[in-house]
């Protein structure tokens, strides 16, 4: 199974880490849904469904791999900034967000201010669901038109190319009936009968209610702008090239069971569970997998490696998970991507915050947080104390000893010097960051205090690029594509060890080889005269 596992894992990695999609989420539909969600019993559920148990039981089963690719980390050419720098011909307008805006407009416009009804309400619901399920993350390539696909998800077996899911009849899903749509969304089967790669998290979406599937379908068909563009075909190497192999996998993989009734009327915990499992597919990354790559349901949200980034244990364990967080902390984190003195989202989680959770309604964020914080505690192999508890401000040593060196002296530096030259300008010589925490402190920081150095290394290599609300959090990466500074494997290792020793739980003895294995970019473009 190793090939298959690697395939899926890397798909996952790439998965949420999606590139540069500046989806302005539906302006008004969340409001619309919030209104209905806030008054659960006003309307009878359209279908009389038996009330579901509200126990947030660490859950039946859940999703498979998410989809996506790592455009942000693999492609450092300027992405969706307004005018593209880097000498791309000067084309100022962000066609992407413009197009998105246009695509979204009918939904928002139609529902402005008033409580939507009928078809409008359904479209508004569909728009919100698309955001909560983060469809755009995978189905839009950087700079591409919304939902027109084309994003390449790098896997060792080749690239899985996200498909065009706009309602264009020829290149998209315009010819799909609602039943066809449902079959793809919940069962991973295309209209032509072939199987989707589980890069598409249909095992999670299987948990969506009929009503929500219908709303999502209506929104895609009526609001999303058709785009007559055919993305490249996915062309994997054997055996993954056999889409039929997916049938066998589907047979053994666990799936969500469809929820029933009107999901907007659920009580808080049931709503939270629905959001976590059927829509946001949290477990896709945060639940470790068994040898068949199914999520281990007895380790729900207990943490798993995505090959590069590590999706940490977010169970309610006070030592291994986030049991020391309040519901408000978690809501703030999901809305803004950061909580001062605890954690900040980078990599795939930053993408999830940017494209999805930051757009959820307040009620939904509280529902999601309340549910997550009730997930059964699981100890962690590497984290034996709260990750955000470690460290304190520490004055870095006085290293002002030498005079200026000649400009061609590019000798590799040691940890204190690398920190001084590249980190201290923002994070401070004492690691305290800025007073407003735009630049976070390095102590009381889950990324630094974690038992696994993976995410610290990934952050140093790839940086942080996360927009939530009005805040665009940004830290440059220091990988081989960096404009700011390109660090060698040995330098990243030395820096990681210096930071964890100074502000975290101790020297993690990270080796250059580990850094090399996590470095997803192409090798340093100009092997500078390192070590000369």
């Amino acid at each position, binding site marked *: 199974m190793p090939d298959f596992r690697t395939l899926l894992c890397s798909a996952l990695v790439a998965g949420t880490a999606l590139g540069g999609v500046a989806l302005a989420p539906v302006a008004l539909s969340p409001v619309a849904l919030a209104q209905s969600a806030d008054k659960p019993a006003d309307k009878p559920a359209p279908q009389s469904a038996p009330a579901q148990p509200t126990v947030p039981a660490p859950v039946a089963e859940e999703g498979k791999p998410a989809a996506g690719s790592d455009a942000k980390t693999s492609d*450092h*050419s*300027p992405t969706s*900034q*307004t*005018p*593209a*720098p*880097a*000498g*791309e*011909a*000067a084309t*100022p307008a962000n066609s992407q967000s413009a197009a998105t805006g246009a695509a979204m407009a009918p939904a928002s416009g139609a529902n402005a201010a008033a409580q939507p009804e009928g078809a409008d309400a359904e479209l508004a619901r569909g728009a919100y669901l698309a955001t909560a399920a983060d469809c755009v993350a995978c189905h839009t390539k950087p700079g591409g038109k919304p939902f027109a696909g084309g994003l390449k998800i790098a896997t060792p077996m080749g690239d899985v190319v996200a498909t065009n899911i706009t309602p264009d009849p020829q290149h998209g899903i315009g010819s799909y009936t609602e039943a066809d749509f449902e079959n793809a969304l919940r069962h991973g089967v295309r209209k032509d009968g072939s199987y989707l790669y589980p890069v598409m998290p249909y095992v999670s979406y299987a948990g969506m209610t009929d009503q929500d599937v219908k709303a999502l379908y209506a929104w895609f068909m009526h609001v999303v702008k058709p785009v007559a563009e055919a993305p490249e075909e996915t062309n994997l190497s054997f055996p993954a090239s056999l889409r039929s192999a997916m049938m066998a996998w589907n047979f053994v993989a666990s799936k969500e069971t469809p929820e029933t009734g009107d999901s907007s009327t659920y009580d808080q915990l049931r709503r939270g569970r629905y959001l976590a499992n059927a829509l946001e597919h949290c477990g896709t990354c945060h639940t470790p997998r068994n040898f068949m790559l199914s999520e281990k349901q007895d380790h729900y949200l207990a943490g798993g490696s995505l090959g590069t980034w590590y999706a940490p244990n977010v169970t309610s364990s006070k030592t291994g998970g986030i049991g020391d967080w309040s519901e408000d902390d978690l809501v703030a984190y999901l809305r803004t991507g950061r909580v001062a003195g605890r954690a900040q989202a980078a990599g795939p989680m930053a993408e999830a915050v940017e494209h999805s959770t930051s757009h959820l309604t307040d009620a939904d964020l509280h529902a999601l947080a309340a549910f997550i914080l009730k997930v059964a505690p699981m100890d962690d192999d590497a984290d034996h104390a709260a990750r955000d508890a470690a460290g304190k401000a520490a004055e870095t040593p006085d290293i*002002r*000893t*030498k*005079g*200026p*060196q*000649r*400009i*061609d*002296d*590019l000798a590799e*530096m040691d940890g204190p*010097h*690398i920190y*001084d*030259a*590249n980190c201290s*300008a*923002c994070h401070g010589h004492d690691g305290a960051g800025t007073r407003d925490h735009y630049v976070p402190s390095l102590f009381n920081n889950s990324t630094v205090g974690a038992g696994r150095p993976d995410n610290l290394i990934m952050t140093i290599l790839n*940086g942080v*690029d996360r927009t939530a609300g009005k805040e*665009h959090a*940004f*830290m*440059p*990466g220091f990988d081989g*594509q*960096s*404009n*700011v*500074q*390109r660090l060698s494997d040995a330098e990243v290792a030395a820096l990681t060890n210096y930071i964890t020793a100074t502000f975290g739980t101790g020297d993690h003895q990270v080796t250059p080889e580990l850094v090399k294995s996590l470095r997803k970019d192409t090798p340093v*473009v*100009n092997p*500078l*005269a390192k070590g000369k």
Partner: protein
Amino acid sequence: MPSEQTLSADVVIVGSGVAGSSIANELARAGISVIVLEAGPRVDRQHFVENFRNLENKPSYQGPFPAVPWARHPPNQITPNDYLHTNGPNAEAYQQVYLRMMGGTTWHWAGCAWRYLPSDFELKTRYGQGRDWALKYEDLEPFYYQAEVMMGVCGPDPAKEDLGSPRKQPYPMEALPISYAAQQFRKLIDEKTPWRVVHEPQARNTRPYDNRPTCEGHNNCMPICPIGAMYNGSYSVYHAEAAGAKFIPNAVVYKIERDSANKRVTGVQYYDPEKNSHRVTGKYFVIAAHCIETAKLLLVSADEQSPDGVANSSGHVGRNMMDHTGVQVTFISGDKALWPGRGPLETNVIDNFRDGDWRNERGAYLVHMVDDNQVDFATQMAISKGYVGRELEEQIRYLSSHTVRLFSHNEALPDPDNRLTLSKTNKDILGIPHPEVYYKLPEYTVKSCEHTRKVFKELIGLMHGTDEEWTPGYFPQDHPSGSTIMGTDPKDSVVDGHCRTHDHENLFIASSSVFSTVGTGNITLTVAALALRVADTLKKELLHA
């Protein structure tokens, strides 16, 4: 030593600064093969940041960049200098500094990204002074915008603050917030003078841009931005390399070869640091090696065919040297504390003297209220006044929060007598002569500086200033220009309106050396715009040939 295998590309560029690297980037993206020869080494930021922090003399802009022996640059602005030898009545006023290394001199600049005014291109026609360029503002406008996007320039909304250079698009990024010190200054100017203070356009991030962070106001743009929020040429090098351009560091070009008719350049030769010679051939050649080194290279390439140097049938190579030689004063404000030094170095300008009818007799200028940290200056002053102990600390606090530094960019005129030549006595380790410059400030500029002094004195009075310290004589601004001057007549100019040399049809120059006048705004954005226009010309000729 025998040459290695001859290298070849469609376009061979000498120099990897903002001009050379941005041309390389444009061409490589269009699928054209490019080789860039850089005399200096590859460099990186972290070593410069460490050099800066280790430096005792922080205001020394060249300090963190000690040159390599095979590609010397001026070590400082002191005359006599052991690389750039200036002489003449205003030798000190032309003591320019620049950097020879990958990415070029924008490693240390303040990011000021001015467009020239339309009148700057027509000084002769409008005011009967100097020369006209062989192009108009409108010709350059699209390339100005392209350069602003490439660098990431922030600036004011043109509807609210018109800087005099018509724009078709807004700035790529919003203007920097005005610092506290600049706000105080602007308030004073608004209330007590007929002048105005405007936001200075800056190649500096006011939001994440080009995978670089937002400016945090470290206040040491010069000598080195520690976080990469300010543009420098190394980003264009990186982008060009990613697009396939080949950069060769430590390649000191010393010879430009031509065909037997002396009409086309056929190749260039360079030394590596061990003085092995290498040859690079191509279809087109661009010299983008900074005003001083570009002229030097053309002169060094003199041979029997061109005894006065390449592209020099007019005799104007090395002549018409200009700068924004200006006036500088530092004083202690008697008004409220300003606390300068919070934010980038240069963010605001008095722009009322950039143009006017008086330009028929005296040069234009702009005024910077420099927003640099003044603790160093204040400490020296407090000590020299004899303070000790607690009083010394209080004085440092008071003086550093009340110090005001003003300087001006005053317009020069192209005067053929202001001339760069090759040193007959000083050579580098490769045997290449050092540059020498004769400089006498044009009367036009002297009058401009006199006007500036009056304005500065008025400002000092308005701020109840004391302890004036005027920089003696004139203040070089490191904006050398004019050494391969542009014009329509091959008899008195070196390049045409497309920066193509009159003498050699496939040789272009991308540098401030082509400027016909120097205007008042910092030169870099105009250098970049001209370079992008050269790239545009080359693309048209190579792709449609």
